[in-house]
């Protein structure tokens, strides 16, 4: 927790650094919203942060090996257990599950039951990666979508070739469609994760990040 009143010191956000692509854009977005952002793999910094973001673009196997090498698997689990808001984005969502089919099969963090599968689409007009803007349907009452009042304006930016297939026990908070409906958001108490990139999703993305940083 911060030593100073929140009115004097901006809340701090630790953005986990595991050499994943384009982490800077997450930091830019967080700073624009008036928060302090640090891209870090230092365990004390992560422990002292008010919020933790687990971002990323990259291949599962490489990402997981750097995550383990830096002990970020432990730091992330500690953050989740501490009760502070933790946000997984894109590969940062996928790695929360038990297993990914990417790179010939990768054992992931196992914080959520389920696996990550590759899109297998028969329709030649549907492309992989699933890249671009796709409207997202959020679960009713989901706090991270609390400011998205207009249901026709929920398109978010995606770039991925694999998608999360959670066990039925997991709370799915967001879905979209690419050949078939699939899960693009999950929540377990203080841990929330999205497949899209809120930092690249225009005003909709900013309102999602704001909701997270305000404690949702």
């Amino acid at each position, binding site marked *: 927790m911060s030593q100073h009143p929140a009115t004097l010191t901006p809340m701090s956000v630790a953005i986990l650094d595991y050499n994943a*692509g*384009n982490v*800077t*854009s997450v930091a*830019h*977005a967080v*700073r*624009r919203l008036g928060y302090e952002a640090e891209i870090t793999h230092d365990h004390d910094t992560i422990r002292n942060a008010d919020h933790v973001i687990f971002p990323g*673009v*990259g*291949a599962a196997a490489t990402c997981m090996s750097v995550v383990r090498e830096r002990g970020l698997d432990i730091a992330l689990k500690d953050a989740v257990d501490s009760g502070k808001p933790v946000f997984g984005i894109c590969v940062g969502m996928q790695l929360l599950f038990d297993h990914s089919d990417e790179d010939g099969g990768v054992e992931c963090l196992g914080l959520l039951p389920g696996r990550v599968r590759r899109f297998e689409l028969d329709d*030649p007009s*549907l*492309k*992989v*990666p*699933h*890249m*671009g*803007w*796709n*409207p997202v349907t959020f679960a009713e009452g989901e706090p991270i979508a609390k400011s998205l009042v*207009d249901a*026709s*304006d929920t*398109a978010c*930016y995606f*770039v991925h070739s694999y998608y999360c297939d959670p066990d039925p026990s997991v709370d799915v908070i967001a879905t*979209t*469609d*690419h050949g078939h409906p699939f899960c693009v958001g999950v929540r377990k108490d203080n841990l929330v994760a999205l497949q899209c*990139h809120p*930092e*690249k*999703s*225009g*005003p*909709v*993305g*900013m309102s999602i990040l704001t909701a997270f940083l305000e404690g949702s």
Partner: protein
Amino acid sequence: MALLKRVIVCLDVRRGQVTKGIKFQGNVDLGDPVEYAVRYDEQGVDELVFYDITASAEDRNLFLDVVENVAASIRIPFSVGGGIDSLDTMRTVLLAGAEKVSLNSPAVRNPDLLGQGAAAFGAQCVVLGVDAKKVERTTEIPSGYEVVIQGGRTPTGKDVLQWVTEAEDRGAGEICLNAIDTDGVRDGYELELTRMVADAVRIPVIASGGGGEPEHLTEAVTTGGADAALVASMVHYGDYTVGEIKTAMAADGVAVRITA
């Protein structure tokens, strides 16, 4: 629901300024790239492309400053083209905050760059820019469209269809297809070419060259089969806002992102 059709704005940058080539007048500077980028983001553009048109060593640092300032200022993805001719230059602009890199002439000269870029950064990062010129159909160029480089000045003898499928196999994640003959004419995209390429590859295709009216973009993503349409002058001079273009496309039944 499915992926929405994208509207992309292209900004040419010279010595740190947005610039536009005008017939018989050379280049005219229009203003600060960051201001333009923020304005188009607010108007609801889906993506931006920044093209370093000088790509000279002395202007390169100025251009990288622009890329960094843009990355800190906008809330949407953007790509960077011009002067991307090695893994190092790709890495530099990606680290500066670009989402993708666009390779045109350097990919023709060294096609291995596509695969190397895809292996290092992921195929979704690597856009192949193609300048296509209508020519007579020959056995060498059966599609009737030839790849040209250096802004259309130099023919390559490569068939456009053969080149885009080869590029896809090599690891390109997207094609930005610019029709040289209709570029800057603002009389509509080269729909036959766009459809031919869109049907030939399974990666997204951006139609470029010829956008002047909102219905041109609608045609590009319907008749042309493109995933996105790129515009420049039709928005730079204030003829249309991106919002007006997308509202008109939506009225034509195209699924686009409309922001409040």
